[in-house]
């Protein structure tokens, strides 16, 4: 048993010395990832890209005066790059990447609105990157929404001013109706008729077509200006009611013209109804006046509250993924080169003759790299925690357990590569392919949810996927790692260890 440990220790010592004899390698392994994260943290711009936007609008378009005003005030991500009438010239500018997008406003925008149809603004962009193309479309949609909201807001404010005038007329009408009712109670029909005629005069201007009562947007004298609220707002309904009341008052006045009238109760009820209608109208108009435009047009706002116990910078967040990737890559590379090197050196033949078993060789190599990678991780962690101030909320025990499990399974992959490779270049290539796969399939750049479910076969075969998730749980959520996932990771490592042992044993048997 003593000899068993001596032989294992021989490999542990040999591998560790071998790596430590290359101080530049160790320095690169520790400082490399740290510097990348550190520079990324310093250099990351925590804001969305500003889009240089060129507008194409006809010279005589009624929208032209609004374009620049809106374009310069919609938000920081839209940079007004000018206005032109020539679409082809604008597209050439876009082709030369002097602007990020071109917004084409159709020349017949006003006529389209008059036809009660929506106007489509065409956005041209020149993005190769699908993500960036998506961003341009997303950003421009938001800006068009904002534009719509502003146009509606201005129209609404204009209607509020009209509502004030109408409310004053309704109040005057209410006073007249009140006096008419009092006169009717006194059976003073002439006085009642006099008040009804006064009521008619007060509502006279509402007796026409309600649409004629409403004007275009504030400040617009242009007959072609959009008038989208004309038949849809409460005001138009109110106007219709007022016109109806005016007609009712006129009819009542005519009926009271009959000198034979004895029973005034019917007319009193009609006046009471008119009074009630006026009260209701007053209430509606007061509401229109009082409700602010933003509340009416954007009644719902969003306030997000993140319940994650820590506020993360972008570089902090990527730390978990980088640590997992680094552990996996270093372990795979060390292990992948290890047995190929022994083979090329002829050491495997020597081991075939020596009283050392494949199990002792593998265990010795696993242990040596676990110790080495552990030491590298300790140094890297100190730099990350104390210099970059990356938060560490969870248990250090869990942190170490994750490192151990990820390293073990990654080493298993590395040794498998090493046993199946016949040259160093093959081993290096295979290690790089593992790294490349990890960049795309571990959720390092984009969440696993964005991938089709069948790609999970690749994702969940990669130790870095588990490592990233575990480190996010431990470092930023202070949660224990999922036992199920941990079991899965260790199981992969264990199965591969057994496979490696079988392959190494077959390599060391007689041919």
């Amino acid at each position, binding site marked *: 048993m*003593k*000899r*068993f440990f*001596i*032989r294992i*220790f*021989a490999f542990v*010592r*040999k591998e560790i*010395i*071998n790596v430590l*004899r*290359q101080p530049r390698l160790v320095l690169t392994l520790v400082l490399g990832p740290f510097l990348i994260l550190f520079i990324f943290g310093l250099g990351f711009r925590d804001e969305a890209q500003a889009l240089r936007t060129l507008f194409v609008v006809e010279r005589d378009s009624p929208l032209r005066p609004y374009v620049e005003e809106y374009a310069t005030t919609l938000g920081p991500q839209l940079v007004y790059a000018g206005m032109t009438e020539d679409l082809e010239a604008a597209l050439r500018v876009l082709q030369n990447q002097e602007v990020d997008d071109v917004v084409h406003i159709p020349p017949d925008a006003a006529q389209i609105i008059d036809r009660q149809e929506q106007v489509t603004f065409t956005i041209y962009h020149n993005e190769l990157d699908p993500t960036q193309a998506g961003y341009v479309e997303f950003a421009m949609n938001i800006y068009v929404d904002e534009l719509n909201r502003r146009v509606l807001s201005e129209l609404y404010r204009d209607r509020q001013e009209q509502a004030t005038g109408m409310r004053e007329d309704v109040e005057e009408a209410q006073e007249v109706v009140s006096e008419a009712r009092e006169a009717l109670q006194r059976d003073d029909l002439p006085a009642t008729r006099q008040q009804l005629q006064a009521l008619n005069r007060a509502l006279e201007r509402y007796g026409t077509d309600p649409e004629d009562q409403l004007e275009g947007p504030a400040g617009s004298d242009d007959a072609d200006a959009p008038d989208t609220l004309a038949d849809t707002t409460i005001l138009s309904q109110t106007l219709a009611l007022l016109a109806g009341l005016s007609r009712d008052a006129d009819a009542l006045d005519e009926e009271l013209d009959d000198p034979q009238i004895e029973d005034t109760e019917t007319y009193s009820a009609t006046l009471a109804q008119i009074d009630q209608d006026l009260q209701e109208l007053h209430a509606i108009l007061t509401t229109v006046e009082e409700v602010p435009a933003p509340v009416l047009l954007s009644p719902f706002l969003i306030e997000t509250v993140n319940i994650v116990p820590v506020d993360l910078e972008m570089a902090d967040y990527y730390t978990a993924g980088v640590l997992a990737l680094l552990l996996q890559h270093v372990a795979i590379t060390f292990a992948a080169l290890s047995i190929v090197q022994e083979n090329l*050196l*002829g*050491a495997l*033949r*020597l*081991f*075939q*003759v*020596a*009283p*050392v*078993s494949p199990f002792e060789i593998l265990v010795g190599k696993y242990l040596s790299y676990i110790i080495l990678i552990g030491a590298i991780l300790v140094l890297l962690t100190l730099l990350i925690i104390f210099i970059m101030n990356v938060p560490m909320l969870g248990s250090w025990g869990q942190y170490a357990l994750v490192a151990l499990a990820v390293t073990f399974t990654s080493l298993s992959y590395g040794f498998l590569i090493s046993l199946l490779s016949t040259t160093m270049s093959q081993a290096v290539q295979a290690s790089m392919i593992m790294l490349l796969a990890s960049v795309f399939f571990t959720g390092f750049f984009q969440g696993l949810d964005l991938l089709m479910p069948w790609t999970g076969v690749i994702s969940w075969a990669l130790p870095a996927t588990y490592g990233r998730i575990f480190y996010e749980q431990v470092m930023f959520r202070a949660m224990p790692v999922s036992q199920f996932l941990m079991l899965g990771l260790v199981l992969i490592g264990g199965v591969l260890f057994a496979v490696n042992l079988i392959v190494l044993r077959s390599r060391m048997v*007689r*041919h």
Partner: protein
Amino acid sequence: MNEMAIRTRGLRKQYKKEDAVRDVTFDVAAGSIFGFIGPSGSGKTTTIRMLTGIEKPDDGEISVLGQPPAKFDQRMRGRIGYMPQNFVLYPDLTVRENLNFAASIYGMNLRRSKEMKTALELVELVEHQHKPVNQISGGMQRRLSLAATLIHSPTLFFLDEPTTGIDPVLRQKFWQRFKELQADGRTLFITTQYVSEAAYCDQVGLLIAGRLLTVDSPEGLRMQAYGGDMIRAETAQHISDGLILDLQEETYVRSVMRRDPHRIEIGVEEAGTDIARLIKWFEARSTALTFVEEYVPSFDDIFVSLVKRHRAGE
């Protein structure tokens, strides 16, 4: 010396359906030095790999220390020392660290400084023990390789061309050490391209193109090559063909070879008595010998002679 450390019978190994070694049969007595001599590519390394268990023979039987190599357990492997033809040294490790690693994989006790010192002294690397292997010469690397083979004191050594690439002085020291190991009761199976090294061996096997031509003692090989002792003679006069033919008729003469018009080499039964006979024979033919002496032919000559004879026989 009677117990056999190695026994092979009809060994055969093929690579890509071509015989690398065929019908190789020999015995190596325990406590002896067995020299396996042959040119590069003759099958020496293949044979040593079969003996150590690295390669499995396609045919034939092997017994090493009483067991077939395929059934060696860890204890048995600990009794064997193998020095491969190419260095198996880790270039970034120092001389001492490499030696330590070799000792450890054989499970040697961690208190091994005495053995380490002895091994380093033997190969004269004490002064260089802290140098990385990639900073020492090729000769030093071979010496270190030998030290790594000796460190665990094996019973049976398989040394694949241990003296290749080292200077003659050190080569002689190596053989001196091999002799000491033999005196200590160890068995050494040594392959070499240096035919002259056959002189250090108890038994020599000559391997040509995968076939074992002969196994014999160095003296026995000489006898096989020339049939007895060799005498070199010089005359003042030209040595005619007729004179050579007459000389070959003498009963004690085994062979006559003319080196130049005045110099011949004569194979005889026993040089001690036959020199006087030869002097008289030449005087009787009015040909005075200006120089005559017994000489020991080099093993290179013996090797060439045997190979020629083998090819002539084929």
